[in-house]
């Protein structure tokens, strides 16, 4: 992987994790530098979502071995909220509804928390409103959303746009995108991809989990990795995604199994 001698933002070495007795990630190695977009592809049940959820600190998962170093620090030792304040952001595949919690209050609490951690002052109500409305507009969301309860009654597309809207608002360093493209029609996909591209930059890194190559036409990855049965079995550039689109995952699975038998 090209590094230009830069410090990596995320390094995974032999990361193993699972739920209960079931091991899902069986030793993942990955290095991500600032400025890079990594696409993680793979068939259903290969551990893609598990990978990003473990990195965000979802308590359902147990880390069984290996390590995850984020900007030189042990990511796995941090609580989920610490990770977020340190600049790790997970865009959820299925964002949960929060009854009675107004979107405005939620965004305010989140922004206050990350800004405080970065040593920034609290925004005035006016500046907050301006900022939030700008981000909503960018994601094609009405300001009326601020009065609604978080994710409650949102359509599938609205939930995904809301996730990317938060990404733009909170401005983290490392974005973990969990199947942000799934369930979107082509217009919504374009809006979401635009948001991701807007976030993208030399001081940012993205790990994008997807089942389909489609979103990669809009968000062009620097690297593509194929995760099968809890391991990265192939890595390459954009062309790998196109090859997968044409040939499916089966040939890689067989190659991986053959490789393990040797």
């Amino acid at each position: 992987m090209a590094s230009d001698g830069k410090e990596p933002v995320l390094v995974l070495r032999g990361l193993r994790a699972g739920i209960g007795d079931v091991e899902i990630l069986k030793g993942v190695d990955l290095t991500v530098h600032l400025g890079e977009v990594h696409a993680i592809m793979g068939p259903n049940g290969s551990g893609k979502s598990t990978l990003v959820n473990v990195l965000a600190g979802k308590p359902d998962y147990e880390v069984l071995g290996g390590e995850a170093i984020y900007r030189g620090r042990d990511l796995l030792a941090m609580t989920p909220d610490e990770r977020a304040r340190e600049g790790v952001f997970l865009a959820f595949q299925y964002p949960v509804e929060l009854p009675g919690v107004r979107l405005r209050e939620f965004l305010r609490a989140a922004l206050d928390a990350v800004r405080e951690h970065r040593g920034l002052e609290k925004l005035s109500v006016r500046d907050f409103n301006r900022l939030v409305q700008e981000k909503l507009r960018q994601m094609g969301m009405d300001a009326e959303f601020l009065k609604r309860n978080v994710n409650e009654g949102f359509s599938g597309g609205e939930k995904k746009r809301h996730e990317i809207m938060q990404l733009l608002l909170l401005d983290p360093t490392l974005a973990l995108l969990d199947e942000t493209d799934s369930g979107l029609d082509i217009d919504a996909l374009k809006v979401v991809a635009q948001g991701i591209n807007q976030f993208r930059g030399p001081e940012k890194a993205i790990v994008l989990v997807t089942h389909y190559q489609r979103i990669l036409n809009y968000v062009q990855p620097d690297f593509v990795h194929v995760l099968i049965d809890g391991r990265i079995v192939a890595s390459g550039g954009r062309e790998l995604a196109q090859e997968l689109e044409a040939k499916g995952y089966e040939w890689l699975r067989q190659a991986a199994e053959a490789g393990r038998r040797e």
Partner: protein
Amino acid sequence: MPPARKVISRETGIEEKEYKWGFVIPVPADVAPKGLSEDIIRLISRKKEEPEWMLEWRLRAYRYWRSLDYVEPKWAKIYHPPIDFQDIVYYAAPLSRDGDRPKTLDDIDPELKRAFDKLGIPLEEQKRLAGVAVDAVLDSVSVATTFQKKLEELGIIFCPISEAIQKHPELVRKYLGSVVPYTDNFYAALNSAVFSDGTFVYVPPGVRCPMDLMTYFRINEAEAGQFERTLIIADRGSYVSYLEGCTAPIRKKHQLHAAVVELIALEDAEIKYSTLQNWYPGDKEGHGGVYNFVTKRGICLGRNSKISWTQVETGSAITWKYPSVILRGDNSVGEFYSVALVNNYQQADTGTKMIHIGKNTRSTIVAKGISAGHGQNTYRGLVKIMPTADGARNFTRCDSLLIGSRCAAHTVPYLEVRNPTARIEHEATTSKISDEQLFYLMSRGISEEEAQYMIVHGFCRGVFQELPFEFAMEVSQLLRVSLEGTVG
């Protein structure tokens, strides 16, 4: 959140971190001997310079109470050791510097003023937030009532009930005990015999009270019970919003609080009654704390009248309380919005009764129960539709939220429908704070405590939005404090 500070209670040595209202106000007091007898009742009545009819009423209540032979009501889901009713002080009054009862705001002990300042209830009128008049009750007496002049100009009476007994006997005699007779229940009988102060409100016909009226109750003396009596009358076409707040110092022993509140709404009148109950809840092991055994009831006497109860109950070791509405007038409306939170070893058995008598009467019940620690939380509610109540409607929503695995929530709805035209809806849910919700908030940088607070606050939103602005901020802070120590 205010910065953490360490304050140790003088009496108990308990750190006040969990309950910042737990200080004792150092004022000299006039305290009656312990125990209850006809002599004590005569003493209270004499101290209050009451007319003969009042004393007679008290004595009748006392004799009725004695006839119950110390047998308290047992049907609620609460547990406590037997209360020794002869081990309680039934009258305690702060003295002004010259040893007499304070007569004006200027006569009040500066120590007392400072204490109420600390509680967030400044007694100087110029310091008050605009739009709220306050009656401050310490132990057995009202120590200050603000904005009385301004209200008088509109014909509104807002004064200690002891004053009303002397100055407005015709109103007090007509309505006292008319909604909650002294035979209603054990604690109502006790209160009727020994009540020493409380608030009286009368709003004349057609007057919309321009400010919220508030009573702030404070138990201070170590062995005093508090037995306040509140009577609110809204005459034809009038409106009043009344707020009530309560705190007590940290005490090792349990303290008894047995209040009676009666509301009367005449034709086209509306009463909105909001309570923020934050009596000392006891410590983490369940020692001390206030026994809050309260009878609150309103009657919609006239057509198109409305009574609305909103309560946030976070304090007390035990809460036993069912603010109710008798819907007598046709088209009258009763509402009950409640949040009851129990933590540690607190117990709450609370709910409402909606008694539909008039035609086309409507009632709404929204009850939110939150249980944490070893807390026991019961919702108990009665909806009764009498044969005369053609077209009556009720909507009940009852939600329970559990935090942790050692607490419990119970829901006991009673429905008595004697008119076939009635329409009744009942919705109930029980849930736990989900890990998914906590993780979602935390993954945005929000701490676990704050995330839990946000979820609980969201759960209570339907009730909180009924609270007047004055209480909304205080409630948020109270909720945070009450939830402390429930994470992890």
